[in-house]
């Protein structure tokens, strides 16, 4: 059930260069699945009429708290970064479908870039009984986030930076190539900038799911502003990233 709730800021801290993690607490949280997202109303800015979408990558249903992470981009994220403990924000959630369910025994590979690693963290947390691997890319060591958590949750965690300042040097797909034979995943879940996602083409013989970003309005599937071209058996269709996604099959997004 989609609800619009008031949350209190419990913590709002830097977790990497220009990237914040905000812990939010409410009275009664609805169930939220890995890969689902929320739309946050920017407080005290009536001029910003669109909510900002962020993935909910950590859910504590006992404490009724969630975590979202955000990179500083423009007006909205700047405003969020100034929020103090106790401040209130209005959040619409849970939105989208999240990642598909994986059977026990299947090996999961998480491929992520930048803040796109965050939704993958919730996948790792949801499949403690599966073998989970990850290959995560960042520009440099200052932008690395959640490395310890991924190391703790994954059988093997590989890191890539463009300049080699943390983990291996190179882009995610390049670094991953060196490890693919050891991992042999049954399914790949990916989230990150579009070029990074596209570069996973060489692995897409393995069922690969990508979580997409698109500029959004309502977040619930009604306004049709968040379209993404998806190839289905009967041709191309403009599907809604918010409602039909944000997770899609790689082959349906990056074809031709």
């Amino acid at each position: 059930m989609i609800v619009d709730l008031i949350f209190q800021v419990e913590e709002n801290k830097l977790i990497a260069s220009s990237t914040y993690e905000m812990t939010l607490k409410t009275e009664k949280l609805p169930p939220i699945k890995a890969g689902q997202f929320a739309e946050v109303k920017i407080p005290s800015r009536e001029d910003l009429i669109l909510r900002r979408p962020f993935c909910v990558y950590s859910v504590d249903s006992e404490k009724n708290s969630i975590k979202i992470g955000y990179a500083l981009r423009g007006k909205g994220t700047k405003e969020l970064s100034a929020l103090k403990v106790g401040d209130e924000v209005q959040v619409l959630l849970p939105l989208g479908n999240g990642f598909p369910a994986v059977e026990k025994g299947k090996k999961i590979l998480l491929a992520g870039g930048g803040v796109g690693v965050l939704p993958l963290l919730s996948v790792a947390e949801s499949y403690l009984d599966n073998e989970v691997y990850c290959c995560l890319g960042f520009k440099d060591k200052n932008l690395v986030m959640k490395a310890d958590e991924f190391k703790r949750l994954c059988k093997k965690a590989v890191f890539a930076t463009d300049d080699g300042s943390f983990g291996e040097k190179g882009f995610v797909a390049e670094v991953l190539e060196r490890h693919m034979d050891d991992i042999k995943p049954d399914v790949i879940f990916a989230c990150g900038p579009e070029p990074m996602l596209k570069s996973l083409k060489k692995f897409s013989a393995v069922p690969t799911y990508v979580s997409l970003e698109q500029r959004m309005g309502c977040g619930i599937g009604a306004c049709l502003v968040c379209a993404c071209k998806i190839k289905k058996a009967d041709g191309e269709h403009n599907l809604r990233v918010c409602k039909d996604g944000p997770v899609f099959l790689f082959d349906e997004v990056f074809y031709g």
Partner: protein
Amino acid sequence: MADLKVNVCGVEFENPVIAASGTFGFGKEFEELYDLSVLGGISLKGVTLERREGNASVRIAETPCGMLNSVGLQNPGIDHFMKEDLPHIKRYDTKLIANINGNTAEEYCAVAEKLGDSVDMIELNISCPNVKCGGMAFGIRPESVLEITKKVKPFCKSPLVVKLSPNVADIKENALAAQEGGADAIALINTVYGMAVDARTMRPVLANVKGGLSGPAVKPIALRMVYDCYSVVNIPIIGMGGIMTGEDVAEFMLCGASAVQVGAANISDPFAMPRIIRELDNYLTEMKIDDIKSLIGKLRV
């Protein structure tokens, strides 16, 4: 509780708050949020004769107190609409308005004919700025407003509302043309043609370059246009443009609107409409007004 009922060219609305076309889909997405029967009505997403995929993304841009969109009438076509979408939404006790579109006058007529008497009202959208043919092209010159209204009217088995574009020389002329063409009511405003630019990438934000502006940023324009039209037409007016609160509804009614539509507010807050209806009721109580109809056109100038 005040009497919120309004009558627009013979159609009784439980309250004057109607969802604006394109911001409420075919209602399905909102039914899990709240009981749609609380709404005065729903103007459903614009439909065309054939299925349309709409424009490329990016389709939305935030602007100060507003938003631009360039969806481009993405819809499954009238046949799918009649078979799947309309029957589903009909289970709710609220008035339904079909928003019709076409590339040619013949297409508008064909869509109206297929609708038969299946909806409470037909809204002729001759004001969409986001399509290459048809759309706003029919709505700019008063002569073409007159012509298309005249052509479509005989095919309508439900009252015909002509939705006017604000991107015109003199809105009064267009309103009068719609009235002369046989419109039972007029609705205004559709979005204001505009664009957004990203100085950093040196590109337009919207893939389609230009789009339609809506939200509080357009409210002063919309109020003025409703006010102007009210002074010249004798058919009812459905007002819209930037309504976010119950008091906004009252402002439009004071300027002459018999009912209103709420668009962008649904996008920034999917629970907006039940709230707006509650606020409107509170406003009337505070103002000691027991019949909302007594607001219509009663601006004290």
